[in-house]
């Protein structure tokens, strides 16, 4: 088991004929992801070559899902059109299958577009949105697996640690830390650093708690908002598996946007200190340095009798 994405999940790529879409689709096929084709309006009927093999392109997501029975889609569409791509995918999955996973990698989508898109997705309860502005989701397999996004596949291995993070490269850091203590990952999810996004920490924690393959969780937050505090409070009452946490941005000055649109301390709220405190209050083992995530995870696993 894993969460939301099985190793052999059938995946579509929206924006597959674009430079970014094609590059990453190729990398996904190389990793072993079961890519079944893509969608670019106006380019239906064409094929795209990935790792030396042709893949079909459809005009619309409903055509693509009808033809392939896809389980998930990944969006590499430029910011002005990305929210619309999310809604198209959500509508098609909802109408045809009643469910589906939509992963949006695009960075820089206008916030009010996302307000609209998230409300649209929430009206279709079988559809899950991950992102935007995120590295995606990966479920490593025995051989290959399902990599849906832009993360470097080769650093992962199948295992029992679930990882959820707002940041891309910090997720990779966390993956490397699990590997340093000979642990692999069940599923790794980047939920993205935008102020308005789809899947949040609590969704991921609940899914990891319910997933028999996952035995411990790494949760990585950053400054801004209070999603981490809410997730910690929720975890205290609902998660029995050990959680290890880190929050980036302890040294960030207030009022300055630190790269991610959501990473900003406003009105003295959303500081790293506040979030670490909430983690500790919830019994989450904290690493003050991401290079120590492995060490802290090992201690937590031992304390739980898992090592």
């Amino acid at each position, binding site marked *: 088991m894993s969460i939301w994405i099985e190793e052999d999940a059938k995946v579509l790529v929206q924006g597959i004929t674009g430079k970014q879409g094609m590059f990453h689709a190729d990398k996904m096929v190389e990793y072993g992801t079961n890519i079944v084709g893509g969608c670019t309006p106006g380019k239906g009927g064409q094929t795209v070559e990935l790792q030396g093999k042709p893949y079909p392109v459809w005009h619309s997501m409903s055509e693509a899902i009808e033809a392939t029975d896809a389980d998930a889609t990944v969006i590499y569409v430029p910011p002005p059109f990305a929210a619309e791509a999310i809604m198209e995918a959500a509508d098609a999955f909802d109408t045809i299958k009643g469910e589906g996973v939509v992963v949006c990698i695009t960075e820089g989508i206008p916030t009010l577009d996302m307000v609209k898109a998230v409300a649209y997705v929430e009206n279709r309860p079988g559809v899950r949105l991950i992102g935007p502005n995120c590295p995606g989701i990966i479920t490593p397999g025995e051989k290959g697996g399902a990599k849906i996004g832009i993360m470097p596949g080769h650093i992962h291995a199948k295992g029992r640690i679930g990882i959820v993070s707002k940041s891309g490269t910090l997720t990779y850091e966390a993956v490397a830390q699990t590997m340093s203590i000979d642990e692999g990952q069940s599923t790794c999810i980047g939920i993205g650093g935008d*102020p308005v996004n789809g899947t949040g920490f609590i969704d991921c924690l609940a899914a990891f708690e319910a997933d028999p393959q996952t035995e411990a969780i790494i949760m990585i937050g950053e400054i801004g908002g209070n999603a981490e505090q809410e997730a910690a409070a929720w975890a205290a009452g609902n998660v029995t598996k050990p959680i290890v946490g880190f929050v980036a941005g302890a040294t960030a000055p207030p009022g300055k946007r630190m790269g991610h649109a959501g990473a900003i301390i406003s009105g003295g709220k959303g500081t790293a200190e506040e979030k670490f405190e909430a983690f500790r209050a919830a019994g989450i083992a904290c690493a003050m*340095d991401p290079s120590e995530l492995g060490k802290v995870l090992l201690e937590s696993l031992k304390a739980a009798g898992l090592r």
Partner: protein
Amino acid sequence: MNIHEYQGKTLLRENNVAVLEGVHCTTVEQALSAYDSLGSKVVAVKSQIHAGGRGKGTLYHPETREHVMDGGVKIAFSREEVESYATNILGNILVTIQTGDEGKLVSNLYIEAGCDIAHEYYLALLVDRDNKSVLIMASTEGGMDIEDVAHNTPELIHKVVVDPNAGLLGFQKRDLGMSLGLSGAALKSFGKMLSNMYTMFVREDCVMVEINPLVRTGADEIVALDSKISFDENAEFRHKNWDDLRDLSEEEDVEIRAKETGLSYVKLDGNIGCLVNGAGLAMATMDVIKLYGGEPANFLDVGGGANEEQVKTAFSIILEDPNVKGILVNIFGGIMRCDIIARGVIAATEALSLEVPLVVRLAGTNVDEGKAILAASTLNIHPADDLAEGAQKIVALIGGDE
């Protein structure tokens, strides 16, 4: 992206939100003719900077730092007072609770007609991350610091969440207006104003509109007496007019240049420069430097697909800061390949004849090639295997210089 009050007032006026008559000025002469043309005996003389707390701020001489005047927003009762206030404000430095000690040079002034105020309210529209919707907040406690109100008397802040599909509904406007104690003509005026402001918020891609105070006049009209408006930078592609509204003097020059080359840079006060890929990792790198006793000089995210040229630009931006005594490069290659970064680092150190110590930590895609390239170079580059080691090394290296 923030805009000035006078620009916000123009926008509000265009969107049929009542504001007072006012004139934007950059000289004392303009301020005087504005006073003459407004025909109002009492006017407000308002410093225009992108920071709050102007009224309670203090003006200083830009060179001597001598105290010039208390208050960056003044009520003038005569032409002479307008002249004296405008002279004291323009060209001087305004320090407020939000500007930091260095303050901000005031180059713009807004002269606004007076008004008969019956009550002051607070109103804000913003994108709320918890509800993933536009949130409207209002309070009877206008003119105060809203964070104090929220802390001391949270029951006096009333909220409405707008469903993005349904839009702002009639009952929501009525409920909010009535919770402020409005009735009759004032309630009607409030509802109309709120509709227009919400429409503007969405059309102009705002992330925040704050009106403090919003006032009810003696004639029961609702008027925006102040305006603080921020736009969503992500939506810049569909607002060509933002270029004209942007006041570059309010932004750090180097941060603008970084942005133009696709880098995200924020200057800080420390002495260890950082060059990192990814916003989260860049913040974590700063945190770990601090954890091991150093002080980061900057936040710098080179993004996911930086090339050699961008790495070079990143180095030159870091080195512009004279406080920088050492640099830590921390790259976890995903899309970005470590060998490309290694070449970029070497090219940049050579081109800029780097003199400060440099620690490079590489991980991820093509890490072995990257490390080999650095090892083969004759330059004085200190390798590190993980972030903690990198931070400890750079802290030790600059410590050794003292």
